[in-house]
């Protein structure tokens, strides 16, 4: 279901009121920048990617078919753009050991707060795309399976299977890394 404010803003933009696009940017900048950040793990590049996504959304606003929610369309457009851009210019690969540079000898201390977030993100970013994308979207969309599957344009069954496989890979990699730190 499309947010009525989004719908009104899109109608206004399509009728020539360019400034109405500002409310769309205001509402969706945070999710789009966060999604981009999960792909590239670089704050500055994430903003550049999100900016390009908004620009593309503006150009193709007429192609949004109203049967899908505006947010689904916007996320799908942004995800496609991010994937293409990252294939063209891959992010700097970060090993799990380099991500966690601080911490004492106790692995439990290492696996807490910021360090674990960095380690998990680096591990997710290093997953093969077919497992990485479902995990990224699932957690970004507050574990809404139907929405995440719709954004990625795949059946829920396929999405669930890839999510499970991705989590297993993630647990395995992070488990081995944490074990190696002990």
């Amino acid at each position, binding site marked *: 279901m499309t947010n009525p404010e989004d719908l009104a803003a899109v109608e206004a933009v399509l009728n020539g009121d360019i400034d109405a696009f500002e409310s769309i940017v205001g509402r969706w900048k945070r999710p789009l920048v966060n999604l981009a950040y999960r792909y590239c793990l670089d704050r500055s590049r994430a903003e550049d990617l999100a900016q390009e996504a908004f620009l593309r959304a503006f150009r193709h606003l007429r192609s949004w078919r109203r049967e899908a929610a505006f947010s689904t369309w916007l996320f799908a457009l942004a995800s496609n753009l991010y994937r293409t851009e990252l294939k063209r210019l891959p992010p700097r690969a970060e090993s799990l050991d380099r991500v966690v540079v601080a911490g004492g000898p106790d692995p439990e201390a290492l696996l807490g707060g910021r360090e674990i977030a960095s380690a998990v993100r680096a591990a*997710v970013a290093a997953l093969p795309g077919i497992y990485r994308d479902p995990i990224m979207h699932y957690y970004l969309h507050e574990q809404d399976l139907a929405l995440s599957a719709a954004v990625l344009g795949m059946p829920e069954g396929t999405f669930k299977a890839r999510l499970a496989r991705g*989590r297993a890979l993630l647990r395995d990699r992070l488990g081995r890394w944490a074990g190696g730190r002990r």
Partner: protein
Amino acid sequence: MTEDQIRRGLLLEPVEPSAAFQARVMRQIRQEAATPPPIPFPWRRALWIALALIAGLVAALVQPEVAAEGQVADQRLWCMVAAAGSVGAAIVPLWLLRLR
């Protein structure tokens, strides 16, 4: 690593866009909106030109066979056809650009 640790890892530290981000995006959007739309490619004219070029090519390939069969090939005529084809090819870009 547990599911909960992974979940917390992915949910922690949301990135805040910089203060100038929205203004930067809107500046780009306004710039984009002010740019005139690109001239559409004149496919219909291009199709006729392509057909004419193909016909010319076929004629050029057929001509030596006709000559080989002993028929009189008027070389001057073919030179004129080739010259007309060259002039035509030269004015094609101008013709395409004149389309509104």
